[in-house]
């Protein structure tokens, strides 16, 4: 199951809540303001880098670019809308907002 997160973890507990229910191996895609979670060197970087050992992590490149984020935490893969569709081909979707 693909989980998407569109909220900044600095402002809401959405990401934290999602992670609590996430099953090992399930991919997570950060979109919209959710991409701030994976900017490298912020308060959440250790959490993100630990999580990528058990779950594939993705961030939407168009949203990263729109926010001026040019460096993401280790193990996070940037994808475009086509990549988003690719993940949806593989998985049912659980949209967290």
């Amino acid at each position, binding site marked *: *199951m693909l989980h998407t997160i569109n909220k900044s973890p600095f402002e809401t*507990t959405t990401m934290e*809540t999602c992670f*609590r*229910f*996430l*099953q090992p191996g*399930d991919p997570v895609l950060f979109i919209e303001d959710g991409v701030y979670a994976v900017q490298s060197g912020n308060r959440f970087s250790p959490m993100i880098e630990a999580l990528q050992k058990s779950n594939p992590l993705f961030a939407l490149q168009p949203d990263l670019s729109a926010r001026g984020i040019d460096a993401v935490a280790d193990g996070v893969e940037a994808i475009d809308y086509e990549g988003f569709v690719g993940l949806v081909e593989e998985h*049912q*979707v*659980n*949209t*967290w*907002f």
Partner: protein
Amino acid sequence: MENENVKKIMHVLRHAPHGTIYTYEGLEMILIMAAYEQDLSVVFIGDGVYALKKGQDTSAIGIKGFSRTFMALDGYDVEKLYVDQRSLEERGLSEDDLIVDVEVMNSEKIGQLMKEQDVVIHH
């Protein structure tokens, strides 16, 4: 044997009632979907557990209350009501505070149920 034409649809209520309409309109959606004989479940996570709090009286804010509608879900054969244990505990609530009978579960169990779904809709 599972019926392949029946979909597992989970509604996740995550907002407190009244401050936003998401819980109320979520409940309206659940009531309609209940008529379609799918495998429906409703999960209360985070502030969503507040939707079930006993003793809500909305008269002074001028918004129609709807907490009693949750009591009607049983009559619509919506019987799978799951509440996240930690969400309850953090809010100082227990099962006795809730207006309907629910199954209180840990996050791991709810996470596993989520993963089995064909459709998950958050409200």
